[in-house]
Each structure stands twice: as structure tokens, then as C-alpha cells.
């Protein structure tokens, strides 16, 4: 039975640099959907291969969310033209490094899958980079972990 992070990690995964544009990130998200395996987060690495952070769909959506959206419920006719275009337009000047999540948790190749699962559940994350000698060597996705653990049921 395969029991460690390296047994379920994927070793082929896209990465971005902190100064990649947001549109590069969006392209990767789109392409993954076309490939049939939608990814929701992309690892961001520095030139030396060390992890700089992770950019997820959530990070992009969080940036789109208007600051005072909780008041919107009190506004009866929300018709101002171009609200969504205005919000997405703000992404144009940004780099991946501006809105990525910088402090992320990683696991080692030899970490037991149950410990990987524990981190995913406690920290509410769905993907974890696997790091060996300071470099990202793989990604564990919660869906792969799920399929691996439950294939015998």
C-alpha cells in the first residue's frame, strides 16, 4: 500500500513566477479545464525553484470582491453599468506576486498520507506542494488523495 506524499503527488505541474501577469495565471486555469483536470491553484516559485507562494482562484476572486459588498443587500437597484468590467480591469496592472498567498504550508515526500490529510483538513487547503531540498518536486491534490485512499472501499 502506498502511504506517503510522494506516492500520490503529481510531478508534472505548472508553476508561475511572482512577476508573471494575472492573465498568465488565468490562461493556466482555463487550459486545465480544457485538459479535463481543472486546477484551482498554481504554485509560484522564485528563480531558484524555492516556493514563493500559491495563487488560487480564490485569491483572484477575493481581489474582485468589492470592499463594501455587505451593504449591497441594502441597495435596491444595482444597475450601474460596468461594475464587473471595472473590477476585472483592476487585475490588469497586477502581478501574480501581488495577490498570491505568500505563506504556504508544504509537506515532505516521506510524510504519511494521514498527516497530509490532517494538514488539508485543519488548514482548509486542497493542495499542498511537496518540497525536497528546498525545491518543489510535486503537488498533492485533495482529489488524488481521496481517490487513492478510497479506491479499496
Amino acid at each position, binding site marked *: 500500500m502506498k502511504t506517503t506524499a510522494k506516492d500520490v503527488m503529481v510531478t508534472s505541474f505548472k508553476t508561475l513566477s511572482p*512577476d508573471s501577469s494575472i492573465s498568465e495565471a488565468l490562461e493556466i486555469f482555463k487550459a486545465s479545464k480544457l485538459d479535463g483536470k481543472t486546477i484551482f491553484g498554481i504554485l509560484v516559485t522564485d528563480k531558484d525553484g524555492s516556493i514563493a507562494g500559491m495563487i488560487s482562484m480564490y*485569491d483572484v476572486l*477575493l*481581489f474582485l470582491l*468589492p*470592499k*463594501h459588498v*455587505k*451593504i*449591497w443587500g*441594502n*441597495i*435596491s437597484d*444595482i444597475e*450601474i453599468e460596468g*461594475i464587473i468590467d*471595472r*473590477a476585472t480591469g483592476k487585475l490588469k*496592472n*497586477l*502581478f501574480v*506576486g*501581488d*495577490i*498570491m498567498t*505568500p505563506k504556504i504550508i508544504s509537506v515532505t515526500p516521506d510524510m504519511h498520507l494521514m498527516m497530509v490529510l490532517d494538514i488539508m483538513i485543519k488548514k482548509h487547503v486542497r493542495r499542498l506542494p511537496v518540497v525536497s531540498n528546498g525545491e518543489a518536486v510535486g503537488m498533492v491534490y485533495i482529489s488524488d488523495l481521496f481517490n487513492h485512499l478510497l479506491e479499496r472501499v
Partner: protein
Amino acid sequence: MGKDTLTGLSVRHAMRKQLIVLGPNDTIDCCIQYLLKYKVNAILVGENSERALGVVSKTDIMGAWYAGLPLSTPVRMIMNSPPFFCNPDDTLDSALNIMKTNKVYRLYALEENSNAVVGAIAYPDIVGLLYHYCSHCEQGIFNKSKDTVQDRVKRYKVHEIMTKQVESCKEDTLLESVVEILSASRFGAILVSDDQNYPKGVISKTDITLCYRHGQDLSVPAGTIMSTPVALCYEQDHVESAIKSMILKDLHRLFVVPEKHQAVSGVLSLTDAARLRSGSCHACISSRIRVDKN
């Protein structure tokens, strides 16, 4: 109505409970990321929420850039310490008074028993609350069924509460001068205008912190980094429609023109709207008679 809209409300009603806390050794770079990500103008620095050490604002970040500090500088070097606190059970009025007296734009709510910071309150949060009241008030502009009452009530117009002194620069003004002007100003943005004072663009403190993070040079002209178009409203617009526009467009301020295609005559920010301390019409200010002047 006939009484102050904020009467009986405590800080707890309006404060933001989502607190972003940076460690003292986190870098300016990290601080800019969090300012952008959470759309806040300042971030608390502390060991944890029980030991708040200071606050770093966008103005402090601009100052760091101007001083030539690298992005890797720890925030403890540039933070303002200690933060200004209030009690979550303080009235909103007293919190506004603390902000006004100390010329600060936000307070952190400190729970007495645990000494933990449980929330933050800034002027725009109060606008939200006021907007909520206006939209439920039978005399408010939004209540179209009660037009008999509405007609009797004088509603605030933008020109009554806007700030008339607008900081501006030209497209060829160097970013360094823009930073100098904005650092000395209580405003979060500067208008970029042409010789006739027609609006061309805006540079906010957020834009400047982003330039710092992107390794831009302070010697570039304002025109190269300004945001366009300038979000405008008219002097005769009702304050509540201007506020609505800011809330929907996710803007902190609107520049004011007397009429279409005219030069800018003022600026209205969510902070100005909060300083009014009342709803958007004279119905709730009549007994209070207290409009804070800038």
C-alpha cells in the same frame, strides 16, 4: 426619527471582525501584499491579537519608499506605535471623537477582559451603517412610497459636504513630488489634471504602494502610472446616490464637477460621508445639529 442616527449604536455594530495581523519581522513587501489582498488602508502589527504593537498604513509604506528602504525591511521599522484603541462597547460617537481628536482614520477594538483586539473600525465602515439606516428610513430617498414625507425633507447634496481643496498634479509631475504631496495630505489620492484643471487621471496611495512593490522608479512622470478614467459625480447629486456609486464601484472617493465637462471643484470620499455622522438628509440631523467640518 428626529434623533441622531448613531445614538445607541456601539463600535461592535460597525467594526470589521476579520483582523489581519502581521508579525513585527514580516517585511514591507508582505505588508503591501496584505494591504492589496484585503483592501485595507492599514494593518495591525503584533505578536498575535493579544499583543498589538503598532499599525502600518499605506502612508507609512509610501514614506518607506521615499526614504529608499528596501522591500525586505521589517514592518516594525516603519510602524506607528502604539495603535489607537477603543472598547467594542464604546458608542460609535465616542469612537468618532477619538478618531477626530487624534487625527487617525481607524481604531482597534480592545476587549477589556482578554486584552485581545477583536475588531477594527474605520470611517467607511460607519458609512455602511448609515447607508443601511437610510435605506430603511421612511423618510429616506429610497422609500419611494412615502413621497409626501420625502418632499418635506431637505436632502444633502454633494457640494455641501465635499472637500473643496483638491490636491492635484500634472501628467509630467514626477512621482517623487506626488509622494511628497500625498504624504502631507490627509487624502488617499491625488488628481492628475491638465492646465484647465480638467481631470485626466488619479493616483492613489494604493497605486503608489504597487509601484514600490513592482520596483518602479520614483522619477517617472505621474501620467505613466495614473488610473483612468476619473470617477466623477456632480455637485448637485444627492449624497446618498454618490455613496451608492462608491459602494458599487468599489471606490473610496469621487471627484466632483459642477456640471459635465467642467473643471473639478471638489472631492467626496467615504470618509467625508462618515464625518457627517448622520444619514443622508436633514431628517435625522435636525435634532443633533452637528456636522463635523473637515
